[in-house]
């Protein structure tokens, strides 16, 4: 009997390639003698372009061509697509492939040079002269709201969209509530920062008039459609192949990037393959960021802490353009609710233009901000009522018998926000145990006795995963008995080749090693959506399961004929179809041979499939409702999203003198339904937690008031190294299967990062005793806050110094607002 692979730790098949240095990332693709592109980018955040002089460029040896906006024609001269045109986005704006008349952020593409190599292409950029007329830049949410200056002349108030949703009457409920409080919260920008930046290679074949594009993307079908439309090609003329992708985390779902269009254009124009590989500085200033929001929360609650009315208003900085629509703030506004059921909820947001890099989803995609708002509110309520923070959460939980639970709101996919399943009280019990919640006060006392200061925080989230519209899969059993699987969404480190092969091997009873999975190649599966919103396992996993089932049905049907048995008596295992309880069997490969009646034999196996050997001479070789070949194809298109959930808890120590923040314990309870491969799921959690630590304690985009990004390098933008992440992450799983798909799975990709800002703010607040309302928080900010909340500082000095001097920090405390509460 073949053992079941679903749910077990299986080492990854793709690792063999990666570990030997044989991965093929986009910069490794070399389709013949290739030219290299470089992009001239705006050094100014806001300016009109009066003139561009490229005359000197073509004199440089090795330069083949240069494009500016004036060289673009047809659809290429139109703005880039607005991918998600939500009706509420009344003032959506997108950039041009090359800037037309105006630039709106430092990094916006202005000219595109193609040369013999990248070094020469970069030399050529410095020979381009641009005459700018400076315009006042709008940087930060406060400046955008003030609207003294406008990013786009025709967008009043810098407001791209204003959206409001309400369930019940939140304001009336708050007015009537026995207790109320108000919070003002702030969260800054970070970014995905995959280790591999963006990159595109294209080859035009003039003989067949076909374009091949390799691009580091999270959606090959999306890029294909965009390239075809922009270059005036039929879809059938364009193949997009996603090679190995060195991390995505969201930024590579946006498309088409200017270079994804300009590289194919140049390849077609010049008749040579062309490559663009983004460098790190370019990734900082010309891809995308996320997270920045300012939030105002009013809440009314009863004596138990039960929320009677929740009224949230927030301002979302979406940067200079809105190609990805309102996805991020809509997710914040809906996923903010987490595992709770406030009796009345109202949310309003404004999505604002600034002269900075645009904002598109980064792992979590608005959920971390929503979780931050909600969990900080829970903590504030608990503090106000003098209750344990877990108790206040527990009284607000949706209960296990209330699923499916309808929130009365519309989710990001335009469908009702309805949770499919979950067990939040069980998760809470697990996380309390895992982190030692009930023992913490004793631990705090022990630490205090040593002059050490510690705090504990907890945060809960619910994550809509596996959003539609659909994914598809094709499963082909070859005559060798090996199985080739294709699904259209892309892979950037999630181990799809392994997890999907586990599903297929189980369903078809073949060896795991005999299953090969291809993702993100439009030649193999032209219908697909993409890899985002923790949807790959749910969507493609389900589609692959269904497609494998179809192939299996066909195999059993053919085998039943060949073995003169009935389908019910057959079983598929170890690469064979066997009549149950006998040793009569047929190899799956032979079944594949039989599935395809041949005219020509080329070996022994195919001889068995010629029309002389198979089929009923009285019937057509391929029945009317059948197809040749042992294949299965299917699509999975769910009614609505699955909702994964989880809780994180952290214990931090803050240095009484230096205000350094150290992580003593990090615990995760995670529920993503059934796990396909627990090793991969835990890896996803580890990675998410590390990004969360970065976002909570280190990473921010330091824009100055003129719109220059001051820390656009790995030297200055502080991503966690091994020394900054928790020494271990304790993980416990809960499995409440989703009723929405055949495998009972929910997504897991983003979960690890969602509660970070909330959980660290809570723990630091608990350690320090004053409110933490602005994240990320650095030691110098914490130090400044201590000075502002002076009584706490006095206790500090007793501990001997570990560092000889403490630098005086700038006063960052002003970002942190007091929490105001009133009791009636």
């Amino acid at each position, binding site marked *: 009997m073949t053992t079941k692979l679903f749910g077990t730790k299986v080492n990854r098949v793709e*690792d063999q390639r990666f570990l030997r240095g044989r991965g093929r990332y986009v910069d490794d693709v070399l389709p013949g003698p290739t030219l290299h592109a470089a992009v001239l980018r705006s050094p100014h955040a806001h300016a009109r372009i009066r003139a561009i002089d490229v005359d000197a460029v073509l004199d440089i040896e090795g330069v083949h061509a240069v494009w500016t906006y004036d060289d673009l024609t047809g659809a290429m001269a139109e703005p880039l697509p607005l991918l998600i045109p939500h009706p509420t986005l009344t003032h959506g704006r997108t950039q041009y492939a090359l800037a037309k008349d105006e630039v709106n952020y430092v990094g916006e593409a202005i000219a595109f040079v193609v040369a013999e190599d990248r070094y*020469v292409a970069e030399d050529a950029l410095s020979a381009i002269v641009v005459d700018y007329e400076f315009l006042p830049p709008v940087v930060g949410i406060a400046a955008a709201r003030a609207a003294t200056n406008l990013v786009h002349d025709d967008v009043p108030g810098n407001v791209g969209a204003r959206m409001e949703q309400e369930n019940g009457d939140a304001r009336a409920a708050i007015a009537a509530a026995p207790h109320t409080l108000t919070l003002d919260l702030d969260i800054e920008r970070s970014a995905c920062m995959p280790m591999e930046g963006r990159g595109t290679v294209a080859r035009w074949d003039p003989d067949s008039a076909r374009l091949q594009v390799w691009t580091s993307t999270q959606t090959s079908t999306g890029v294909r459609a965009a390239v075809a439309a922009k270059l005036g090609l039929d879809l059938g003329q364009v193949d997009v192949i996603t090679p190995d992708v060195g*991390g995505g985390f969201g930024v590579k779902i946006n498309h088409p990037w200017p270079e994804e269009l300009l590289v194919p254009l140049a390849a077609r124009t010049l008749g040579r393959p062309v490559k663009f590989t983004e460098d790190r500085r370019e990734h900082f200033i010309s891809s995308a960021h996320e997270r920045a929001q300012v939030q105002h929360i009013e809440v009314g609650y009863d004596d138990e802490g039960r929320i009677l009315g929740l009224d949230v208003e927030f301002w979302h900085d979406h940067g200079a353009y809105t190609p990805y629509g309102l996805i991020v703030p809509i997710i914040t506004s809906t996923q903010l609710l987490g595992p709770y059921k406030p009796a009345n909820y109202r949310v309003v947001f404004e999505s604002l233009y600034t002269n900075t890099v645009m904002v598109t989803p980064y792992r979590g995609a608005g959920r971390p901000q929503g979780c931050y708002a909600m969990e900080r509110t829970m903590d504030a309520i608990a503090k106000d009522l003098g209750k344990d923070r877990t108790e206040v959460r527990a009284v607000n939980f949706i209960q296990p018998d209330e699923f499916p639970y309808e929130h009365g709101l519309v989710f990001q996919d335009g469908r009702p926000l309805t949770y499919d399943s979950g067990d939040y009280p069980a998760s809470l019990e697990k996380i309390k145990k895992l982190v030692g919640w009930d023992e913490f006060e004793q631990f705090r006392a022990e630490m205090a006795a040593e002059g050490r200061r510690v705090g504990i925080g907890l945060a809960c989230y619910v994550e809509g995963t596996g959003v539609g519209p659909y994914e598809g899969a094709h499963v082909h059993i070859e005559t060798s008995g090996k199985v080739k699987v294709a699904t259209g969404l892309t892979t950037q*480190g999630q181990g799809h080749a392994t997890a999907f092969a586990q599903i297929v091997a189980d369903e078809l009873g073949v060896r795991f090693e005999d299953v090969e999975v291809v993702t993100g190649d439009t030649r193999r599966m032209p219908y697909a959506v993409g890899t985002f919103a923790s949807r790959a396992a749910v969507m493609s996993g389900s589609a692959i399961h269904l497609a494998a089932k179809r192939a299996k049905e066909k195999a059993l049907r053919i085998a039943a004929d060949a073995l003169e048995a009935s389908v019910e008596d057959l079983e598929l295992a170890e690469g064979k179809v066997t009549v149950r309880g006998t040793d009569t069997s047929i190899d799956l490969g032979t079944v594949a041979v039989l599935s395809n009646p041949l005219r020509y034999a080329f070996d022994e196996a195919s001889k068995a499939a010629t029309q002389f050997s198979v089929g009923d001479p009285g019937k057509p070789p391929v029945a009317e409702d059948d197809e040749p070949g042992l294949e299965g194809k299917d699509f999975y298109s769910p009614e609505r999203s699955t909702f994964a959930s989880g809780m994180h808890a952290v214990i931090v120590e803050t240095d009484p003198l230096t205000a350094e923040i150290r992580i003593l314990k990090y615990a995760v309870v995670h529920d993503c339904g059934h796990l396909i491969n627990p090793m991969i799921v835990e890896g996803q959690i580890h990675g998410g937690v590390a990004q969360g630590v970065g976002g909570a304690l280190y990473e921010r985009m330091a824009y100055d008031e003129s719109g220059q990004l001051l820390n656009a390098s790995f030297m200055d933008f502080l991503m966690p190294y091994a020394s900054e992440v928790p020494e271990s992450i304790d993980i416990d799983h809960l499995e409440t299967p989703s009723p929405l798909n055949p495998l009972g799975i929910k997504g897991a990709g983003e979960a690890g990062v969602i509660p970070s800002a909330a959980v660290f703010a809570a723990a630091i607040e608990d350690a320090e005793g004053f409110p933490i309302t602005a994240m990320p928080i650095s030691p110098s900010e914490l130090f400044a806050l201590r000075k502002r909340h002076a009584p706490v500082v006095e206790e500090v000095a007793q501990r001997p110094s570990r560092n000889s001097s403490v630098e005086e920090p700038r006063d960052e405390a002003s970002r942190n607002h007091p929490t105001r509460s009133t009791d009636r």
Partner: protein
Amino acid sequence: MTEETHDVRLHVNGATYDVSVPPRRLLSDALRHDCGLTGTHVGCEHGVCGACTVLVDGRPTRSCLMFAVSAQDTEITTVEGLTNPDGSLGPVQQAFLECHGLQCGFCTPGFLTTITAGLAENPSPTRDEAREMIAGNLCRCTGYQNIVKAVERAAELGSAT
């Protein structure tokens, strides 16, 4: 004006590559594009991420901070050179496979070379030393948990051979 080039002989993973490169060509680019050894990756080109780490005469070196012309007469080992002579995975590679020490794989070559050199110097590191060994390389996918485990596992595998 044609760019001046220099003939350089690179010894990489025991093979010899004669390349003609401009003085400004980075070793990382020469390895990737002139020698076709694309296993070495470039994540920042300013010496911070460590993805481009190769061994130059056994010492971990950021190939994005070295010119190809200055690598003449050195022995270079890249990720492609870390497998055992029989083609099976070397101990550090094997440990990464077993411990799930990689996700997208982009940072991996730099970790593998760094750890290879680290274990040559300290064959049985403590957990803290293991973490210290990799603390100069960036990975955005794994959160480092399993990479630290892989260092310990590689030490185990290395001592067994």
